[in-house]
C-alpha cells in the first residue's frame, strides 16, 4: 500500500503542472482579450482568395504611404 505515496506525488505533480500552465497563460495575457481570438480563428486563409479576380485589375497599383507627407 505504500504505492499510495508514489501515486499522491504524481497526482500533486500533475496538478501543479496544470496550475503552472494556468499562471503562465494569465501572465502572457491570454485572458486579457477573450473575444478577438474567437473571431480571428474563423478567417479564411486569405492569401488563396484574391488570386481569382486579379485578372481584372492592373497590377501596378501599389499603395504608397511615404510620398504623401
Amino acid at each position, binding site marked *: *500500500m505504500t504505492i*499510495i*505515496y508514489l501515486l*499522491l506525488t504524481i*497526482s*500533486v505533480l500533475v*496538478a501543479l503542472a496544470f*496550475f503552472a500552465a*494556468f*499562471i503562465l497563460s*494569465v*501572465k502572457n*495575457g491570454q*485572458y*486579457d*482579450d477573450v*473575444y*478577438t481570438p474567437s*473571431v*480571428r480563428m*474563423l*478567417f*479564411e486563409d*486569405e492569401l488563396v*482568395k*484574391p*488570386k481569382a*479576380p*486579379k485578372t*481584372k*485589375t492592373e497590377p501596378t*497599383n*501599389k*499603395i504608397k*504611404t*511615404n510620398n*504623401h*507627407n
Partner: protein
Amino acid sequence: MEDCFHCGDACNNGVVIHNEKAFCCNGCKTVYDILHDNNLDYYYELEQSPGITPNAINGKFDYLNNDIIIKELLNFNEGDTQIVSFLIPVIHCSSCIWILENLNKLNPNILTSQVDFPKKTVRISYSITEISLKDVVVLLSKLGYEPYISLNDIKKDAKTKDRSLTYKLGVAGFAFGNIMFLSFPEYFEVNEFWLNQFKHIFRWLMLVFSLPVVFYSAQDYFISAYKSLQSKFLNIDVPIALGVSVLFIRSVMEVVLNLGTGFFDSLSGLVFFLLLGKFFQQKTYNYLSFERDYKSYFPIAVTKLDSKNLIDEFQTKVYDLVPDDCILIRNEELIPVDGILKKGSAFIDYSFVTGEAKLVEKIIGDEIFAGGKHSGTPIVILVTKSVKQSYLTQLWNNEIFNASTQNIFQSLTDKISQRFTKSLLVIAFVSGLIWLFIDMSKSLNVFTAVLIVACPCALALAAPFTLGNLLRILGMNKLYLKKAEVIEQLAGVDTIVFDKTGTLTTNALHTISYKGELFSEEENNQLKNVLRASSHPLSRALFHHIKSEVSFDITNYSEDIGKGISANVNNETIKIGRFDFVASESKSNIKSESSLLQTTVHISINEKYKGYYAFKNEYRKGFDRLLNELSKDYKLIVLSGDNSGETTYLTKTLPADVELVFNQNPNDKLEFVKALQNKNKKVLMIGDGLNDAGALAQSNVGLSISENINVFSPACDGILDASMFINIYEFLQVSKKGVKIIKYAFFFSLFYNLIGLCFAITGHLEPVVAAILMPLSSISIVFFTTISTYLIGRKITQNS
C-alpha cells in the same frame, strides 16, 4: 437610392460608380481601391459594407514628426523596431479585425498588428528604417481607421493590467479541487484500516494546500476587515475574515494535535466561491472609460506659429504652451487653451463643453475659451492662459475630482452585516458558555463551530451575483454602468436633476422655423440660390431646409464675416444674416423677440424686412411622457446653462412640480447638487457635456447621455445611449427590483445559516456537514439570483 458598397450609407450626395459598384463618396472609393489593388477584397466578404468613410487628414498629424511627442506615444522603442498601441473607436466588426491585422500586406514595413476588439485598440509593430509613426497613422486614417490620440495617451506606461484577482481565483480553485480530492476518503469511512494508516499524510497535504488560500487568495478580506474595524464599522468582510481565520486555526489544531480532519475543504471552497462572486461582479466595459476628464478630449500637440512673422510653423506639446504664444487651429481641430482670436474668422462648436451643437461665430479680438472645436478656414489664436489655467480645465481643481474625498456608500450588504456580525458573536459566546456547564471539553468546539457555519458566504454572494447580472442586462439595453454598486445607489435615488441642452434636447436634430411675411415661390427659389454660395454652417443648414429648385445665377455676391451675406438675383437684392445687417428700418419688437431665441437668421429682399428663421434644438421624443412618469416617484429638477427663453414652453409641457433653474455655469451646477445633498437628498444627475462634469461627479449617481457611446463623455457612473433615454424610468424600476431580489436572497441565506447553527449549537458539526452546507447554500443563492434577474431582464427587453 443605392447604398455605398464600402460603408453602407445611402448615397445621398450622388453616386460614384466604380468597378460596377456604387460608392457614396470618393473617400470610400479610394479605400476600396487601396484594398482591391492589394488583393484584400476579402474585407468585403467577411461582412457587408464594413467600411468607414475616411476623414480628410491634411496636416492633422504633422505633430507626429516631433520626436519628443513620438517618444511619449510609443510602447516600445529599440533598434529598428517600434511598437505603438492606438485606440480606434470605429472598430466594429470582424472585417475591421481582419484588415487591421493584415496591414503588413499594405506596407511590408509593418511587422505585425494585433487587434483587441473589446478595447477597440490595435497594437502595431513596425520597422523604422522605411516608415515613421506618422506614416502608420496616415495609412490607418486613409483606410478610415483614424486613431484617436489625445492628451490622455501621454502617461500611458503607468497602466498595467491588474490581474491579481484572476491569480487569486486560480490559486483558490486549484487548492479547492485538490483538497476536495484528498478529503473525500474520510467523508464516509473513518475507521477503515488502510485509511487509518494513511490519513495523516492526506491531512498534512490538505494543510499545505490551504496555506496559499488563506495567506494569498483571502488576503483582501483580511485587509478590508482590518480597515473596517479601524473605522469602527462592521462590513461584510469582518465575519468572513473571522470565519476564515477560525476555520483555519481550528483545522490546523485538529491536524497537529491529531484530533480530526479539519475543515480545509469548506475553507478553500468558501474562499473560492467568494472570489468567484467578486470576479463575476467585475464586468467592465473596456472600451468605455468612466474616468475621463478634459485630457481625453484635448489633442497632444498643436501647431505653434512664430510669434513675429506668424508663418513659420512648428509642433509643440499642448502642455508647453504659455501665454503670448500664437497657435494655428485648422478645420475640425479642438482649441486646447483660452485665447484671443488674432486672424481669420472662427466658427466654434462648444458641444464638448455645453452639450449643444451650435456654432458660435467669433471675430478678430474676441475671446475664445478652451474646449471649442473650430470649423472653417484656419485661424490664429493668441494664447492668454496655459492649459491648466484655462476656464474649462479649472473645474477639475475642485476637490470633488480628488478620489479621496468621494463619499463612501454604505451598501445593503454592509448594513445587514452590522447586525449579522453582532448577533453571530452573541450566539457564539452564549452557546459556548452554555456548553461550559454541559460538557466543558466541547465548549470551545461549539464556539468555533458557530463561527464557522455562520460564515456569511451565501450572504456575501447575493449582492455580487444579482448586481453583476443586472449590470450585464442593463448593458445589453445600452445603459453602461461603471460598477455594480451603482445599481444599488440608483435604487436609493429620490431626486433627479436633468441638464437641458444635449440631455433633454438632442444634439443632432435642429428644428428650423420661420416667422414673418411668407415668401412667394420665386422668392423662395432666389433665397436658396443665394444660400448655395455661402459656406457658413447656418447657410448650409438653411439651404437644405428650403425646398426649391437651384437655377438662377447670382451676381454681386458678398459675404460680411460675422454679419451676413448679400447678393443680387434677377435685379433683386437679397440680404441674409444678423438683424442689424439685414434690416434698415428699426423693428425693435422683432429684435427683442428674436434675441430671446437661440439662433436666428434674418432675411430682407430689396431692403424690405421679411422675417427670420429660428434654429432650435429639438427636444427628445417622449421626454414629456418620461418626465410625467418620473414625477410620480421622484423630485425633478431641470438645470440649464441657457437663459430662461424657453420657460413658457417647458412649464406648459412638463408636470407642475418640476423645478426649472436657468443660467447655471458648470460650478453653479456642482454647488446646486451639493446643496440638494446637504438637504439629505439622494441625487441622480443626468447630463452630457463637460460642463456637467462637476455635477456628475458630485451627485450620488451621475449618468451621462451620449449619442454615440464611442465618442467621449465626461467622468460619470454610467453612460446611457441616447436612444434609450425614454427608458430611464424602466431602468430605475429595474434597479429597485434588483435590490428587492438581494433582500429575498438574504432571507434565503439566513435560513441556511439557521440550519447550520442547529448543527453547531448541538455540537454535531461534522466536517462533511459543513462541506455540504456551504456549497449548497452558495449555489442555490446563485441559482435564485440568476433566475430572478433573468426574468426582470426579459421584461425590459420586451418593453423597449
